[in-house]
């Protein structure tokens, strides 16, 4: 009797478990990291996709740190994991993960020419198109137009001006009782984001791109050291000391409650800062990132996210269809209007609906077109290590462990070790 009741309970548990997995098993799985409203927006598009095609898609969410995402993706792909069909991949990952992704060049032949050629080029490895662009990214300098006007400043054109303006407004505002305000928030945590931030400083000061397209290690130069030393004066002065642990969302957190005069961030933060629960709604504007004192270039780090189909997906046909859907004109248009993600289709920058809803998208076009790529192409499979060495050297300088010249000399030596005979 007792045994029978136990068995029936176990059977019940087992049945509910099986039913549970069956009910939640969708036709496809897409894995995606997220900042801001990315996941909500993606869910909406996946539901639209299901309504059109009858194919249901699950989202597997990942932590916000792109460094963590990459490690997990590499692990899954090396294990030939069949559970994930579509990966949302950073613009720099294509050369490192290309062996695991389906070649889309034939499947997407009809739409490839609609995208910016440079973006398609960045996702093409050895003639294989490994991912279709979803949106592109280039950061800008967000500034509080109300505060600049109140204290009589223009948006800064150089990093030195930014430092001075931020300091002046911050001190003036604090004197008026706004204790928590800071001059400038950005991404200073030791992760991929710091590599992009610091690359922007260096490139805007004529200091090269860490590793040049021909493979030469160029980072150990005076211009690079000068601007990183300038940046090292920010934490605790115009930036909160904790900026050395900030990623995108932490910076936006300080900015969006009205506690920062300037912020360096990606386009996604624009729509969020304009939302109704934002303290800075209608009080801010964007401008290209400043240039260095010894440079003459506005350098925005090129970002952007793309969609790749796993070689190990049991349902490649449907996955390719999904990728093309999410990269299509209509969906990119909705993404641009709802979340100010920059489209990868030139036509959308002239689309009247987009420009009417988000005029800032038009302002972003020149910023994106001058964007500086990270050295993922010349350093190939070693890119992550190069990036980690770079952000470690910069993070050390920003934390006050040695000046930039010393740390960059050490960095150059480390990069030569990694390079050995060749990249």
């Amino acid at each position, binding site marked *: 009797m007792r045994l029978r009741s136990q068995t029936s309970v176990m059977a019940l548990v087992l049945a509910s478990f099986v039913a549970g997995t069956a009910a939640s098993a969708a036709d496809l799985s897409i894995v995606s990291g997220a900042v801001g409203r990315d996941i909500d927006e993606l869910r909406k598009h996946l539901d639209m996709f299901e309504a059109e095609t009858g194919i249901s898609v699950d989202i597997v969410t990942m932590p916000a*740190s792109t*460094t*963590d995402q*990459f*490690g*997990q993706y*590499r*692990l899954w792909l*090396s294990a030939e994991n069949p559970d994930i069909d579509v990966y949302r991949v950073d613009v720099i990952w294509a050369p*490192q*993960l290309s*062996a695991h992704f389906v070649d889309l060049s034939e499947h997407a032949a009809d739409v490839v020419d609609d995208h910016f050629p440079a973006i398609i080029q960045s996702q093409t490895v050895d003639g294989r198109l490994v991912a279709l662009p979803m949106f592109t990214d280039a950061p800008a300098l967000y500034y509080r137009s109300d505060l600049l006007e109140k204290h009589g400043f223009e948006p800064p054109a150089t990093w030195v001006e930014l430092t001075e303006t931020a300091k002046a407004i911050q001190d003036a505002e604090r004197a008026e009782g706004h204790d*928590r305000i800071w001059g400038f928030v950005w991404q*200073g*945590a*030791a*992760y991929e984001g710091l590599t992009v931030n610091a690359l922007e400083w260096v490139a805007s000061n004529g200091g090269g791109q860490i590793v040049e397209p021909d493979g030469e290690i160029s980072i150990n130069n005076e211009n690079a050291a000068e601007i990183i030393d300038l940046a090292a004066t920010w934490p605790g002065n115009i930036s*909160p*000391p*904790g*900026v*050395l*642990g*900030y990623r995108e969302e*932490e910076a936006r*957190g*300080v900015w969006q409650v009205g*506690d920062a005069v300037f912020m360096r961030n990606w386009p996604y933060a624009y729509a969020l800062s304009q939302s109704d629960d934002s303290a800075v709604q209608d009080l801010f504007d964007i401008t290209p990132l400043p240039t260095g004192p010894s440079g003459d270039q506005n350098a925005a780090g090129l970002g952007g996210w793309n969609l790749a189909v796993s070689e190990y997906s049991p349902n490649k046909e449907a996955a390719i269809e999904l990728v093309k859907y999410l990269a299509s004109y209509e969906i990119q248009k909705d993404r641009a209007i709802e979340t100010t993600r920059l489209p990868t289709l030139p036509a959308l920058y002239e689309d009247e609906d987009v420009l009417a809803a988000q005029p800032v998208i038009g302002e972003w076009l020149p910023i994106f077109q001058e964007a500086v790529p990270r050295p993922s192409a010349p350093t190939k*499979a*070693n890119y*992550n*290590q190069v990036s*980690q060495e770079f*952000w*470690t050297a910069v*993070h*050390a300088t920003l*934390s*006050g*462990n040695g000046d930039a010249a010393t740390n960059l000399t050490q960095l150059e030596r480390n990069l030569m*070790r990694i390079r*050995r005979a060749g990249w």
Partner: protein
Amino acid sequence: MVTATSSLPQAEIPAGRKKKTQLTREKIRAAWIFLTPMILVLLAVAAWPLIRTIWLGFTDARLSVPGSGQWIGFENYLFWLDYGDGEGEWIGLLADPTWWRAVWNTVYFTVIAVSIETLLGLLVALVLNAQFAGRGFVRAAILVPWAIPTIVSAKMWDWMLNDQFGILNDMFMTLGLISAPIAWTSSPDTAMAAVIMVDVWKTTPFMALLILAGMQMLPGDVYEAAKVDGIHPVKVFFKVTLPLIKPAIMVAVIFRMLDSLRIFDLIYVLTPNNAQTVTMSVYARQHLFDFDNFAYGSAASTLLFLIIAGITIVYIYAGRVNLSGDK
């Protein structure tokens, strides 16, 4: 039987020994039958991965290159890189300052954290060993930090330590202990201290529990005798309690030491990628997965294993820890 043996010792002993041997043999056989499944499982889940890791450390395996894994000998450990122009340098794990930094970080963390945990654990155990109302409840309550998964408690502390909205800075500011918020986890001066603090918070209950278990084994008559003789309680603690619970403490320290030498999750959540807190495990993982140096990461894991084994052996010999249970 006894009388028979004593009266005929010469004749009986061989028979008795034979009988005994047979019994022992059966016992041994039974023991092997029971042990075999466990040994097989251990070989499959512990020995095989370990051997494979050690082997991979001598290859050039990469995750992104399927089928890679050629034998390259000790190149991952130490290798003279010739630039071809008469110049060159030693590279490899043993010549990598970042690796030695990670080793130092790990040892530093272990020594400081485990020492504090042992002292605090001892204090907590002494309190919990005393008779007072609601002791059962307090004993259960004190285990809460240990019961929370590390990832959860690390994330929780991450928010509490945040420089802008963290409750810790808010409390210290209100109390007037600090004049400006401290960025606990990102400042190089406080990152390691923050990690140690969270680890102490989390694992002190574990130490307390093990030491408390040791205290409960103490014979009560010794204390009664000390009381009758009018010995000061502090002296009783140092002369009686401490020597008697020393074996328990030593074993507890070994457990914690092995754990903290491998520390990964707490640091991965709290201070990822900060050079000040990178430990051996974090370093190995970075190379295994982030940098696509699977072989190099395997070599680091092998060294990690050797270093932990070495430290443990030294500790067991130096501390004369009795792990076998023999008297």
